[in-house]
């Protein structure tokens, strides 16, 4: 692999995003708006807002980057640019890391804006270190990116790729403990939740927001990094030099 190609790829992906200001606006403005909506829906229950709102800041980058990456990679596959790249002296890792770098940067901006609104304007109570929340948010974004990249291989059209959001992400959102604490869920669902990456992403965020739990946060972050590496390795196998 080559650092020159990795960086060039990251810059190219960012440049493409910049050419699409509407997508950027949606990525940056929808999360803080949803947190605000959440705040007023739970106006009478500030404790619920505090419990769910903080981790939401770090969950949004996961869902955004999942969708953006699965569509972006599907486009590379369908427009022939992936085939061209695969015929050039570019390592698969250059492409994967290039995407990872670009979307990590976007996620850092997205999480910062959302955190600024949630913790600054909406009075969301965070006892832990905000920078840890942001760091976990970026990690979750890269996790979402790597999963999106992998599933993009199973979509032929953008319609299909978009459906992967309800198919892959919604169940994880329901089971990760964000809406209902996992120990209050049906035991089968609780057992399933152990196998889902978002469960660990949420668990780390919940501890980071509540403060303390340094060991748990480190363990959760390690699991997220491990799943990301696994998804990238699986994603790399879907980037073929030769196609039928």
């Amino acid at each position: 692999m080559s650092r020159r190609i990795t960086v060039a790829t990251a810059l190219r992906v960012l440049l493409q995003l910049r050419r699409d200001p509407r997508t950027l606006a949606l990525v940056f403005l929808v999360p803080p708006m949803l947190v605000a909506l959440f705040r007023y829906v739970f106006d009478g229950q500030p404790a619920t807002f505090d419990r769910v709102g903080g981790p939401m800041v770090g969950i949004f980058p996961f869902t955004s980057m999942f969708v953006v990456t699965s569509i972006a990679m599907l486009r590379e596959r369908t427009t022939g640019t992936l085939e061209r790249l695969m015929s050039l002296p570019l390592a698969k890792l250059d492409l994967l890391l290039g995407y990872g770098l670009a979307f990590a940067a976007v996620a850092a901006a997205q999480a910062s804006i959302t955190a600024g609104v949630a913790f600054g304007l909406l009075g969301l109570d965070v006892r832990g270190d905000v920078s840890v929340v942001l760091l976990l948010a970026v990690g979750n974004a890269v996790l979402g990116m790597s999963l999106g990249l992998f599933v993009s291989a199973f979509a032929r059209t953008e319609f299909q790729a978009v459906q992967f959001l309800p198919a892959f992400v919604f169940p994880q959102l329901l089971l990760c403990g964000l809406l209902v604490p996992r120990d209050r869920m049906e035991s089968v669902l609780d057992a399933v939740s152990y196998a889902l990456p978002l469960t660990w992403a949420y668990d780390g965020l919940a501890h980071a927001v509540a403060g303390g739990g340094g060991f748990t946060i480190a363990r959760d972050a390690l699991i997220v990094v491990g799943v990301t590496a696994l998804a990238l390795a699986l994603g790399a196998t879907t980037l073929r030099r030769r196609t039928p």
Partner: protein
Amino acid sequence: MAAVEVEHLRVSRGGRLVLPDVSLTVEHGTVTGLLGPSGSGKTTLLRAIVGVQVVEGGRVTVLGAPAGSPPLRARVGYVTQAPSVYVDLTVRENLAYFARVVGAPAERIDRALDVVGLRAFAHRVVRTLSGGELSRCSLATALLGEPELLVLDEPTVGLDPVLRRDLWRTFRALAAGGATLLVSSHVMEEAERCDRLLLLREGAVLADETPASLRARTGCERLDDAFLALVEA
């Protein structure tokens, strides 16, 4: 050793045997035209030579190495029939990215733009280009690495006669500079400009010779007629 050596190549695509048993060679420093009706297997053959096609059997050797092997990725340029560039970037941004990928110096960007006549369009977003401009942009990206072998799949489709003539002059100039070009086309007047012709029909090579010998063999003055005589024989 020839620039391209194909021996008993066998390829199926989508359950159909496209190339049952193809053998041919392409000499260094020549412009070789690959001609044949649509569906004859031209694209599949080119893909196998570039090394992006899964093949069932046979051997393809390019510049002395197995087709698609890593050292060849910097030495072979490939332009697909459908332009494969990023439509949301400008022409120059596309070229700048691919130049970084192949490790070409930035000066080559302007040179490639001049070769395809897109200098004035450098700052246009690719999505806004016409079909001909788009395919020239795709061609320009393949020139950046100054490849020893350039494989072009129908590069002149949708181009007006002036551009077509200019591009063929470019191909001749590249070959004069030592590069080998393999160009597919279904326009027979372009066959005239090639050093050698490969005629493909239903996955079989009907002719592998110079335009002059093809004429002499078929007794047809126009290559169009020579082509028809062979294809319908």
